[in-house]
Structure formats: C-alpha cells, structure tokens
C-alpha cells in the first residue's frame, strides 16, 4: 500500500464517517458542523485527484460561505427538534442504499465496456486554475453567463421572499 492509498483511505473513511454523523446526530447544529468537516475531507480527496482549484473552491465557497449560511439559519430559527433521527421508517434506510446499488448495477457494465475503469490513462488531467478556467471562459462562456443570470434571479428572489408582509 502506497502513501497515496493510505491518504485516500483516511480521507474517504473520515468523509463517510462524518456523513453518518450528519445523519444520526440529534442536534441540527452538530449536523451542520459535521457536514463542514466532511467538506474538508472531500477537499482532501480533490487534492488527491489533483483538482487543486476545486479543492480551494470547496473550502472557500462550500465550507466557508454556503455552510455558514446554513448554520446561521439553524441558529436563527428557534425550532423544537426531535431528538430521534429514526422514526421507524424502514423504507428510507433500506431504500437509499438499494437505489444507489441499482444505479451502480445499471452503470457499471457501461463503464466497463467503455474501458474507463481500466486503470492508467495516457494523460492525466491537472486541475490547476489555468486548466480549469480556460475552458470556462472560452467554450463554456454561454453557460457562465446563464449562471450569472441565475444568481441574479436567486438574489432578487431571496430579497422578495425575505420581505416582511405588509399589514393591511
């Protein structure tokens, strides 16, 4: 086992452990913090995949901005939470892995046939800032503009949703 493998197993097991803790933690704030932690481990996996830019974005935007917004709302709302995560719903506990397993069985033959799983590629992709952002601003310019519009629409929508209703 090489050092790469050991680091991979550490990050992925820690990631999945944090995922389980998000699921079973009785406290919503604790769940949010475990989710932040799992995003850090995911950023570690991105570094292993040489996706340095995405690892940075994962920490800055996901863990830093999106999850802070989440935790802010969790702490803002003074809700009564149920202490239990399990409500005797067997369908979900069995159904979720089953759905993923069904998807995997459907996709694995396709992947095997395409040869994508057959180990070493001729060229590895390095996810540096230049390599990722050059296609974004050349080939994918139109989607970027559409995303800008979507973000604007989201901003306006949130302002409208967050307004206090006028009392008649």
């Amino acid at each position, binding site marked *: *086992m*090489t050092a*790469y493998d050991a680091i*991979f197993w550490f990050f992925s097991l820690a*990631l*999945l452990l944090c*995922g389980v803790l*998000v*699921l079973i933690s009785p406290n*919503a704030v604790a*769940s949010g913090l475990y989710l932040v932690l*799992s995003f850090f481990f*995911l950023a570690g*996996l*991105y570094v292993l*995949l*040489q*996706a340095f*830019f*995405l690892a940075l974005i994962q920490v800055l*935007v*996901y863990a830093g*901005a*999106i999850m802070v*917004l*989440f935790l802010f*709302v*969790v702490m803002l*709302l003074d*809700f*009564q939470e*149920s202490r239990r995560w399990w*409500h005797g*719903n067997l369908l*979900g*506990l069995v*159904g*979720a892995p089953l*759905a*993923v397993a069904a998807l*995997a069985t459907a996709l694995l033959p396709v*992947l095997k046939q395409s040869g*994508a*799983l057959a*180990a070493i*590629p001729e*060229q*590895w*992709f390095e*996810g540096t800032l230049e390599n*990722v952002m050059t*296609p*974004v601003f050349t080939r994918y310019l139109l*989607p970027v503009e559409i995303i800008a519009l*979507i973000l604007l629409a*989201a901003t306006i*929508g*949130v302002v409208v*949703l*967050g307004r206090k209703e006028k009392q008649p």
Partner: protein
Amino acid sequence: MMHVGLIHYLAVSGALFALGLACIVLRRNALLVFMGLEMNLNAANLALVAFSRYGGHADGQVLATFIIAIAAAEVAIGLAIIVALFRQRSTVVTDLLRSLRG
C-alpha cells in the same frame, strides 16, 4: 490490496450519495433534509472530478464548478423559503407541513 483507481472514487461517491439520500428520506427536520441534498450534490461533484482526472479532460471539473455555483443559489433560495415557512407556521418539521395534502 488493489491500488486506488477510478472505481474507488466512484464507490466513495456512491456511498456519500446513499447517505445523503437516507438523510433526505429519514430526517424530519427540513434543514437536515436540505443538508442531505448538499451531500448528494457533493457526491456528484466527486464522481465528476474523478472522471475528469482519469479521463484526462477538463469538462468534469468545469461542470463541478458550475454545480457549486448553482448550489449556492439553490441554498440561498431554499433557506429563504424555510425561514418564510418558519415565520408562517413556527415549525420546520416536514410531517407537520402538510396543508397542501388536503
């Protein structure tokens, strides 16, 4: 022991997706349901980045960047809806929010 390859990353991605799906289906708190959704998006991102790395092209990582941008918009809207809901009903328990069910 096998060396780590594409299939291992896909397995981790699938497991993370299953955890997110279980979070959506099992939890009663609307915010926790939303967190499960975020886990699903991140599982998809991990698969895309792994494909991009092993396939040798940039498209997967570009798509992952777009997904993160869309997720930011989606989280903002969703949390605004949850806050508005809480103002109206004083609860975020999904079982109690069933006035549309008739």
